[in-house]
């Protein structure tokens, strides 16, 4: 949980950082109380609830398949995390997924030798889309909401136009194995889906990336782009890379989804809002600068567990949206209060929020002093 703290020391001069004091256990407990940590508790609670309703869900083979099914949305959520933590939005994710799925279907076809070139091509497309989004946002200074909305409409329209809106092409089975297959005869789990392996790899890479200078700069940029720029960060390049990472995550999610869902231009529809919901559920603050990357993935799991729970309760699937809506509002309303606990004095200065220590530096009146 402490991975994402890059709070500038200057703003908290005169008091110790609450996140670094206390024993390891105290810190874990305190971390679990932040929105980014609370999502893990939420996942645990939901998991228990699902198992309670349907005991077979807890068996390892079932569970690992569930994780495999959730992998695409979790990967997409981690991609969206980079963009959101840098203070932007990426609405083009669903369209990118659709594009990649259709590219895979039409380019590979029955030709097995084309699998690797196809993956390279898809990654290239991802990089290009990310570059367009990123440069449009940073160099052209168009709000990211609008740029990515534009790429979403343009890409989605193009893909639907080229395919006529219907399912076309069918990639060779070896390619689809990435999404639906797995390592057979694993001791406890029975089968270890490739998607789980990819998910773990992406998660490890993400954690490493967020601890690397890039991640630190990214969070600083999201918190205050001007301060980051004045401190020497290349804000435009950092943000552009975030968009590239997001598009690449969408590409990986697309590759996995080919295996599950097949080739249809509507695959990935609504993924952008699902991913944003997952990220927000993970306690990442819209507007940037707060949140942990694994919390975003955990948010995706919480969402999927919730849907499974509703499924097992045999609630009509049409209520899914309503539940999703209630959940994200509650999560964000709760975290809007909770984030003001540990970090800097909030500029919104919610007087209702209890102060962590009843001492100095709290009034939140920097703006009013001069």
């Amino acid at each position, binding site marked *: 949980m402490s991975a994402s703290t890059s709070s500038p020391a200057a703003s908290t001069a005169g008091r110790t950082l609450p996140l670094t004091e206390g024993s390891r256990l105290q810190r874990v407990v305190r971390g679990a109380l932040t929105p980014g940590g609370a999502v893990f508790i939420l996942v645990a609670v939901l998991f228990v609830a699902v198992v309670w309703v349907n005991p077979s869900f807890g068996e390892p083979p079932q569970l690992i398949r569930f994780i495999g099914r959730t992998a695409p949305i979790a990967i997409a959520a981690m991609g969206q995390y980079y963009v959101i933590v840098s*203070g932007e*939005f990426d609405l083009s994710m669903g369209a990118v997924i659709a594009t990649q799925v259709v590219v895979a279907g039409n380019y590979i076809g029955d030709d097995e030798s084309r699998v690797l070139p196809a993956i390279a091509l898809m990654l290239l497309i991802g990089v290009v889309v990310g570059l367009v989004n990123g440069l449009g946002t940073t160099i052209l200074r168009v709000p990211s909401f609008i740029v990515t909305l534009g790429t979403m409409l343009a890409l989605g*329209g193009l893909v639907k136009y080229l395919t006529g809106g219907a399912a076309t092409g069918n990639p060779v089975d070896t390619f689809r194995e990435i999404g639906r297959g797995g390592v057979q005869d694993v001791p406890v789990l029975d089968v270890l889906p490739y998607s789980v392996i990819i998910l773990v790899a992406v998660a490890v890479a993400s954690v490493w990336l967020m601890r690397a200078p890039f991640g630190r700069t990214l969070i600083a940029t999201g918190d205050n*782009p001007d301060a980051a720029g004045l401190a020497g960060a290349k804000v435009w390049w950092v943000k552009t890379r975030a968009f590239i990472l997001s598009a690449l995550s969408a590409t990986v999610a697309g590759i996995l989804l080919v295996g599950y869902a097949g080739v249809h231009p509507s695959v990935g529809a609504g993924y952008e809002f699902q991913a944003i919901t997952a990220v927000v559920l993970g306690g990442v603050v819209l*507007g940037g600068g707060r949140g942990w990357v694994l919390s975003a993935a955990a948010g995706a799991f919480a969402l999927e567990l919730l849907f499974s729970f509703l499924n097992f309760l045999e609630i009509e699937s*049409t209520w899914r949206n309503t539940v999703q809506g209630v959940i994200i509002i509650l999560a964000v*309303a709760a975290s809007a209060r909770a984030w003001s606990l540990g970090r800097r004095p909030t500029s919104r200065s919610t007087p209702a929020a209890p102060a962590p220590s009843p001492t100095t530096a709290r009034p939140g009146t920097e703006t009013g002093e001069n």
Partner: protein
Amino acid sequence: MSATTDRTPDPASTPDAASSVENRESVRRRRAARPRGARQLDSTALIYLVLVGVIVVSAVLTAMEGRNFFSQGNIWAVLTAMSVLGLIAVGQTLVILVGSLDLSVPYVVSLSTVIAAGGMKGLDSNLSAALVNTLVVCAVVGFVMGVLVSVFDVHGFIASLGVGLIVSGYLATNYQGSHGDASPALELLGRSGIAAVIPTSFIILLVAALLVTLMLRYTRLGHHVYAIGGNRDVARLSGVRTALPVIAVHVLCSLLAGLAGLLLLSRTGVGLPTIGSQGRYDLLSIAAVVLGGTLLSGGKGSVVGTLGGVAIFAVLDNVMGVMQVNPFLKDFVRGLVIVLAVAVYARRSVVRRPPRFAGTRPSLPTPGSITGSTTKEETA
């Protein structure tokens, strides 16, 4: 911004001994501080310049198809197409000006058609009751969003997305397919107009836009909207009660979306639970607002510009319809136009921003701004 800066010239203008020069100066400053200063005017003019360009190109393209863009029927079609998206975009402008967002509009539109059609049951005698019912429900939806945004500090993006999802779940569960029947009087309204050129729905849009513009320029609420959108903390520290305008604006936006739903109902005759999401009014209305020169982070913009943005979309759609462009390709063109137009516009507003604070130090961005979107327009 405006409401707070409005105060500063007051001491200069009130003393009896103030010379006429000072007076003129204070008037000038007060005007500059208003939402629509001289600078704002020519940025709005720019949008209408683009609109004229789009119309000229469209007229040429339409002529190449052997048809007349300025024929009665075609103008009627364009204005009708404008009215629904226009009403929604006017509401969206208000919400964006205050620094929030409303992604729930498509579901509110659908909800409004379904409730109104269900209430009318095809009878004129039910008309007024159904209209009141519908608008009250829409207002309640907006009120909930406003409270979430202002009191519970939920980002507008999430609050409206969540409320929209809740409404969509309700719609999907309780209504399958078309529902109810519009009253004949309402359907007649949908077909009526002036001289077969200007449909009544467009007049409704103009009246709504005029009222909102007057509200923004001449009422306390309007000035507070700009102040809160510019910087919520500064507005609050200046003594503005920030909750009320935010709630009011969300209620107005949902009401206008409900009105747009009623207009749709007057044309379709039945309530359709998916008509809003099919129209993708959420994203298109936001795009139209930004195209119209309103800052996505709030505090700057006008309804007049938004109408220009909506008109650009309507004309584009119309000409693509005439040329029988593949509907999927339409999206491609739309996306391209949005990015290109806003790219041109966004760069201009960067250059334009500092003069608003004439003579004083360059404006600093708001570090604690609640809006999730970019604050980079202000950094310049």
